[in-house]
């Protein structure tokens, strides 16, 4: 039986060692050779809209809030079906050796190429065909990100109107923070304190008042009016995303994400303090249950190769390369900040998965207090709950158990902190939505560049920022709009359909595409390191070997999904998610061939 505090200490040690040795000494100093002397695109290409230098802490906030989303929370919560050891091992290993390397290199490669995306960098190392294939793939992946997260956000707002209230109130506070920092030139510390007080007041308000825009009864079909609120929120979130993605980054994105980072730090600090207080308790979850428990679509899901389809952002994610080389690289004021923002941001995300999800769920596994409150059904464990609920319950349980020591009633503290956990999740989802829209706009604009010499007027219309954002949001919303029947339950009255939001169908396609994107982006970065930075021997291998290993794992995972899972899914998922997954596989194989050709050419040139 492992005490929680021992595990916390080991994880912190691993992260500190990884940051100082692997990140700083090897990647930063030996491979990339970052220098304060080299000007970044935020300075050389400053435009006041997308290319704008940011304070490293502000930029960390943006980068972290954009990459976090629901991934580091939902994925590990689902993977707890393996027990706590395998998910934790995958988070730590993937984080240090793949995810953080991938994010940092994508950021630095983009910075060195003037702030262009990882996709355009592929043209420099793999040729023009690779660029267009990669662009189509990325646009496709970003629309899936938007659809999946938009669907989750709309459902979250419909389920708990308090989350909608704070998400709405948070934005004007963030704008005011930006106004204080940039217009009134108030010291950043004072501006931070003022906005923190406002956020606390907004939290207290939201704890008591929810905003609702219609009925939400997921047991009813859309035709019976059970999903009105979901559909309305989806449209409102779409309008928000178009606006937020088209506004200058300094106006909303930078201050909002900076404030978001404080929510993260608060969330992480609370849970670490909580884990220290309840640290002598042993983890109640088994370390290992089975190598192949029933997870995806109720099918036996082998840890290898399926784990990347379950745990995404907490370990590694291709979406991060798009953020790093999309919005972050255009705001990096100094090359030396990249380690903290890129490598550090990814380690923090892994810490979030470990401390706020895996360990709390393991502690709350079958807690008598939760069974007594009716949160966990009797004779069952926390796995009886949905993934988001597992996270909320675990977080709330650790915090309530801690505050119980100080005479605060368990049930009250539990209620406050389960809401707080939901709010953290919502903040990240909203950020991911407008960042993915902005990135999809960039991708769309790059994809259309061949039209410019032939029809400049058409090019101007198609690449207008409002038009481009609208196209992306429109397609994403259309994908997220349908409510689907996920299963049918037999009752004495006959079979009853169980409805859920579209993310249930989109998630596997999103996860698979996203992880394959990570493999392709890491291969692109590996080629940049090998061919351009001339990092050979051990340093080159440290990047190329994980890239290829990841590609093999994700390819096997997607093939497993197509063979074992797709056939048992309802038609809409089989056709929709199945065709997207097949498309991803074909593109990734073509890109792998281009990668091998480029690598061999590079080696031949060296000889």
């Amino acid at each position: 039986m492992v005490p929680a505090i021992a595990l916390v200490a080991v994880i912190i040690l691993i992260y500190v060692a990884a940051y100082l040795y692997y990140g700083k000494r090897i990647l930063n100093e030996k491979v990339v050779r970052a220098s304060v002397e080299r000007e970044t695109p935020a300075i050389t290409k400053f435009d006041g809209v997308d290319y704008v230098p940011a304070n490293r802490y502000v930029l960390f906030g943006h980068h972290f809030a954009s990459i976090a989303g629901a991934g580091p929370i939902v994925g590990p919560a689902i993977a707890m079906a393996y027990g706590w050891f395998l998910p934790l091992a995958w988070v730590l290993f993937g984080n240090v050796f793949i995810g953080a390397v991938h994010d940092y290199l994508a950021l630095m490669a983009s910075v060195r190429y003037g702030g262009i995306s990882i996709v355009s960098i592929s043209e420099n190392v793999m040729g023009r065909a690779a660029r267009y294939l990669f662009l189509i793939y990325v646009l496709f992946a970003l629309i899936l990100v938007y659809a999946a997260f938009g669907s989750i956000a709309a459902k979250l707002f419909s389920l708990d109107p308090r989350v909608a209230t704070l998400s709405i109130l948070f934005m004007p506070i963030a704008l005011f923070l930006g106004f204080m920092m940039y217009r009134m030139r108030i010291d950043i510390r004072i501006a931070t304190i003022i906005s923190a007080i406002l956020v606390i007041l907004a939290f207290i308000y939201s704890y008591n008042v929810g905003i609702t825009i219609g009925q939400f009864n997921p047991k009813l079909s859309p035709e019976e009016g059970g999903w009105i609120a979901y559909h309305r929120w989806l449209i409102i979130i779409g309008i928000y995303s178009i606006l937020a993605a088209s506004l200058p980054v300094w106006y909303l994105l930078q201050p909002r994400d900076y404030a978001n980072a404080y929510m993260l730090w608060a969330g992480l600090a609370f849970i670490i303090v909580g884990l220290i207080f309840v640290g002598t308790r042993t983890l109640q979850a088994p370390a290992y249950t089975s190598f192949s428990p029933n997870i995806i679509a109720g099918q036996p899901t082998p840890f290898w190769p399926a784990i990347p389809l379950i745990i995404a952002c907490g370990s590694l994610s291709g979406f991060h390369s798009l953020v790093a080389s999309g919005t972050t690289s255009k705001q990096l004021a100094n090359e030396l900040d990249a380690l903290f923002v890129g490598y550090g941001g990814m380690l923090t995300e892994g810490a979030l998965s470990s401390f706020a999800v895996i360990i709390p769920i393991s502690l709350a596994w079958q807690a008598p207090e939760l069974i007594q409150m009716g949160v966990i059904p009797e004779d069952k464990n926390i796995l009886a709950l949905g993934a988001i609920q597992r996270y909320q319950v675990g977080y709330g349980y650790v915090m309530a158990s801690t505050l119980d020591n100080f005479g605060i009633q368990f049930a009250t503290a539990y209620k406050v902190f389960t809401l707080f956990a939901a709010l953290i999740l919502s903040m990240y989802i909203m950020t991911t939505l407008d960042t993915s829209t902005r990135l999809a706009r960039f991708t769309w604009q790059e994809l259309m560049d061949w039209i410019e010499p032939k029809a400049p007027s058409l090019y101007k219309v198609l690449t207008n920022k409002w038009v481009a954002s609208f196209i992306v949001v429109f397609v994403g919303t259309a994908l997220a709009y349908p409510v689907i029947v996920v299963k049918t339950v037999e009752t004495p009255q006959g079979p009853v359909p169980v409805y859920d939001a579209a993310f249930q169908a989109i998630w596997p396609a999103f996860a698979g595409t996203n992880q394959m994107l990570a493999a392709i982006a890491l291969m692109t970065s590996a080629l940049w390191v090998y061919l351009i930075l001339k990092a050979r021997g051990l340093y080159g291998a440290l990047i190329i070997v994980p890239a290829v290993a990841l590609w093999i794992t994700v390819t096997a995972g997607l093939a497993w999904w197509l063979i074992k899972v797709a056939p048992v899914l309802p038609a809409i998922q089989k056709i929709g998610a199945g065709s997207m997954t097949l498309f991803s596989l074909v593109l990734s194989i073509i890109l792998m061939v281009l990668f091998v050709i480029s690598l061999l050419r590079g080696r031949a040139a060296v000889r």
Partner: protein
Amino acid sequence: MSAQSDPKKIVGMALTVIGLLLLAFGVIKGIASPSDVDENKGINLIGTNKTNDLKLDALAVIIGWLAILIGPALWFGETPTVIRKAAGR
């Protein structure tokens, strides 16, 4: 302030002021005189979840929120000097 940008600033100012007023109306109404109450969660509601009517307070909050997002951007327009300086402009 150029003559060309004046209408933009006026629209921005109007959107900001209207947005703030609408948001304040909805937020205050949520405490003082809520449209509905969620008995399960024990909270006041802006809007209602009992019918599909879009209540005035919920509409005010949402329209106010979106107006505040775009209003100040039009009103104050150009990139702040502090950011230009950071970029050496």
